[in-house]
Each structure stands twice: as C-alpha cells, then as structure tokens.
C-alpha cells in the first residue's frame, strides 16, 4: 500500500510539473511580461535584473518572455508529429497483424528497410533538402518513427488474434472493424500510451538537435530548443543567462515525460520488454 501511495505522490508531482509547463506555454500571451519579439537594441545582452528578470538576448529581447513562449513550438510539433506517427503506425500495424499473409510480409519488409536507415541522417537530409519548415520537420519525424509504433501494434495484434475468443467472435459474425475497435484497441492502449510519452521526449530532443544545425524551428519564433542550441550557444560563456532558463525548461519537460512514462509502466503493470526502447 505504501508503495502505491508513494507512486501516487510521484505521479501527482510529475503531472504537476508537466501541467505547469504546458499551462505556461498555453497561457504564455497572458503570463509573459513583455512581447517576446520586441527588440531593443539599446539594451542588448543585459544580465538578469529588475527590468528583465532573466536579462535580455543579443537583440535586447526579454529572455523571460521568450522562455514562457518557448515551449509552444516544440510541444506542438512533438505532439503533432508523434500523434501522426502513432496513427500511421496504428493503421499499418493493424493492417499487417490483422491481414497477415502478403500484406504482413510486405509491411514487415518495408519496416525492416526503414529500421535500417539511420534516423537522424534521414531527418537532417529531408529537412535540409525540403527546407526547414514545420511541414518537413513533421514529415521527417513521422517517416523516422512510425516503424516503432507499427511493430508494437503488429505484435500485439498477432497475440490477440491468436486468442481463441476472437475466432469465436468471427464465427458469430462480428465484423473486422468491430473486432479491431472493441477488442484489439483496448488491449494495445496502455503500451501505445507509454510508447507515445517516450517518443514525445525523444522528439523534443531531436528537434533541438536540428536547431543545432539551424534546421529546427525558424527564428524569430521563441523556442527552447532553438534558444539553447541555435545561434545563442555562441553566448554560453559571455552571457550564460541566455541558456540556463530554456535549458532547464527543456530538461524538466523531457525529464517529467520520462518519469511519467515510467510511472505509467509501473502503474499499468506492463512488462518491461513489451515496450522495447526505440
């Protein structure tokens, strides 16, 4: 019981941090003291002080306001890209597992190919070639991460399909769609949720990695990943205040997502190896 209580406490704490971060980004326009885009060339690289609690950046913009706004782009992007990969993985995985035969063989073959491609490079190449806009970043993310979802889904579907009661349902004349919706989906839900959280964390870091190559979220949109790894990293010695706050935010975000994933795993009693690390 105490273990359960401790877990509940942890879950509450992590959810609070996550909600706070998400709340901050959602309410950013009302929370931020200044316009995150308003430049003030007479007050560049000011250290933290009373006028600007976290100082100003190279263009004299208020760092605090930029940090408050900074989660929007990456959170939205990560959520959108991961949801899309999940949907794609779901459809493809169910198709493969449920249909079996040639469809399964073809899909397995294709996913083997995608797994053989170096993810980060495909991402950099695609974004570099197609131009760094939200659309191509999402495309690159989906292309490099649908396989994880589809493999998971396929495996689970195969397991469920082998259950005798499904045969029975079929015999009773239940439609495929009904079986998928009523019996397959509920069984893979928990694993999907966990994989989803892990992926979101990864994706946020990948997009920050793209920013290191100037291929991430485009300026002047304030973004944590961009603020720590874009051109601002040049100031990490001379004006470290530019990097600390967004860095802490991004670490806090991914950290809480990871811990949440862990707790869910424990809580929903999922076997460790069911969700292989991607």
């Amino acid at each position, binding site marked *: 019981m105490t273990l359960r209580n401790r877990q509940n406490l942890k879950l509450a704490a992590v959810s609070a941090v996550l909600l706070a971060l998400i709340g901050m980004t959602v309410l950013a326009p009302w929370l931020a003291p200044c316009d995150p885009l308003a430049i003030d060339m007479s007050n560049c690289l000011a250290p933290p002080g009373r006028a600007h609690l976290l100082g100003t950046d190279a263009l004299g913009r208020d760092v605090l306001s930029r940090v408050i706004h900074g989660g929007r782009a990456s959170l939205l992007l990560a959520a959108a890209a991961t949801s899309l990969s999940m949907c794609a993985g779901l459809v493809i995985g169910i198709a493969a597992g449920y249909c079996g035969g040639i469809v399964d063989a073809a899909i397995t073959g294709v996913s*083997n190919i995608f797994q053989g491609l170096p993810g980060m490079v495909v991402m950099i190449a695609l974004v570099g070639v197609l131009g760094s806009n939200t659309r191509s970043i999402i495309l690159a993310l989906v292309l490099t991460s649908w396989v994880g979802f589809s493999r998971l889904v396929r495996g689970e579907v195969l397991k469920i399909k082998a259950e005798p009661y499904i045969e029975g349902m079929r015999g009773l004349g239940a439609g495929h769609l009904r079986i998928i919706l009523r019996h397959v989906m509920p069984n893979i839900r928990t694993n999907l949720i966990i994989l989803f959280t892990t992926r979101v964390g990864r994706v946020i870091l990948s997009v920050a990695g793209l920013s290191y190559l100037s291929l991430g979220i485009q300026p002047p949109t304030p973004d944590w990943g961009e603020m720590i790894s874009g051109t601002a990293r040049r100031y990490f010695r001379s004006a470290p205040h530019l990097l600390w706050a967004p860095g802490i935010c991004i670490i806090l975000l991914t950290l809480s997502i990871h811990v949440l994933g*862990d707790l869910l795993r424990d809580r929903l009693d999922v076997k460790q190896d069911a969700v292989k690390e991607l």
Partner: protein
Amino acid sequence: MAILTYTGRRLLMLIPVLLGISLAAFLLGRIAPGDPVDEALFRIGVEFPTEEDRAEMRAQLGLDRPLPAQYLDWVGRALRGDLGRSYVGNRDIARELMTRLPITLEVSLAALAAAVVFGVGGGVLMAAFHGTWVDTVLKALSTLLLSVPGFWLALFLITVFAEQLHLLPTSGLDRGLASLVLPAVALSAANVGSTSRFTRGNILAQLGEQYIVAANAKGLSQKAVMLGHAFRNSLVPIITLIGNYFGGILGGSTIIENIFAIPGLGSYVLSAIQNRDYPVIQGYVLVTGATFVLITLAIDLLYLAVNPKIRIQGGES
C-alpha cells in the same frame, strides 16, 4: 538444423531489405529540388554556363538519363564497390567512406563500451542497493541522462574536462584512447540512461523468480545470488538491447562528430548534405544502412548461439 534454416532464411531476407535501403538511399539523393549541375560547373570555375556546358556536365554526372536507369546503374556499380565520385573535391566516395567507416565504428564501439560499463554497471548497482538512497540517486541520474540534449552534454564535457581540467583533448583523434572518451560519453549518454534502467528492472524481475528463492534456501549470500543467477539470466536481453542501440549510435554520431571534429561518416554526410553532394549522401545511407542491418543480424545470431532454447518463430527476433 532449425538454426541453419533460420540463418538461411534471415540471410535471404537480407536481400530485399538491402535493395530497399539502396532504393531509399538513391531516392534521398534525388528528391532535392534544383540542379547540382550549375554548382558542379561553378566549382570548376565556369561562371557563365551555357546550355551546352550544362548538358555536357549533366551527361558527365550521369544525370541526363531516366531515373530507373540511373538507379540500376548506380546499384550495379555499388555492387562492384564503386559509389562514384563526390561532386565536391572529386574524390572516390567508396574509398572515402571506407577510410571514415573505421573511425565512426571506433567511436561507436567506444560509446557502446561506455553504455555497457556505465549502463550495466549502474543497473547492477541500482539493483544491489535496491530501495536505498543509492538506487534513488542513480535512478534519478539515469533519467536525467535521458533528458539532456546530446550537444549540450558535449559542450559541458568539453568545457569541464578539456578546458578547465586539461584532462582530455577537446577534439580530434590524435591523442588515441583519450580522444575517444568525451565523444563516447556524449554519444552514449541517453543509452547509458536506458540501459541502466533496463538492467535494474531485469535483475529485479529475475530476483522475484522462483529459483532465486531456491538458491536463497541453499544458503548462499544474497550478493552471490544476485551475481550468480539474476545477472547472468538478465544478460541476454541486455545484450540485445545494447545491440539495438548500435544503429542509433551509428546514425546519431552526426552532430557529435561535428562538435568533436571527428572525421567519421557523420561529419562527412553532414557537409555533403549542406553542399548537396548527392552521391555522397547516397553512398553514406547505403553503407550505414547495410552496416546496421548486418550488425543486427550478427547480434540476433549471436543471441541464438548464446541461448539456443529460444523459440525460432517468423522473421521476428
């Protein structure tokens, strides 16, 4: 016998996968909008290309033929070990990749070693001190490692260990093993995090199994139980997991190689992407893809050799 059939089937399945990777590699180099011809001309000093110049260069680069023909031609030559010449610098790509592959493999192996030493070591420690503060601290640390952006960690490591403490070189490869430490640690950080958590979970799960209870009943000390049984039994899935990381490390070295000035595959493909050096991008994806697939296969077979009891089913490992 089953093992032989299984191996044979896996090898056969390799062919379509490799072909698929080659197709993807080829297309990756072709989806770019725009034309490498003008750039190639500019690089040799032709500032005012006429249509004739362009046509000639296009023919010289083999870009004037239909796409399927280009693909077949490319694959055919790739099979013979010829990946063409780079647009930038006119170098033999296959040779360039082969001189760089060992460097990347070296760094990747060092990263893998770091993942094993710190990951498995940390996991065992956590399991051994399960429930104490050591477990809590290490667990927090491993989760933190999963959450720190790789280049940030790299920058931090360089500042502390090279610039402040002068213990290790900032970059390059000219100091032997010492040069490998920082890139390996930066590259493996996330994997150290997940390996240690995975190891811990596995050992703890094993500790719950029946026969451990039996071993305890025989009067062995608890530590011996852990090392003797639980660890050995959980080693196999851990090996597979670490093997899986190899692909990620191989592909993830792009940014790390650039930061640490390591002339491996990653930094090569990065500059190729920036210069739109199609043949290099294609060659890179082909070589890394093939390396990864082969290594995965090798690990699967190794896994099989270590643990023949495993059920061989489907193409799934």
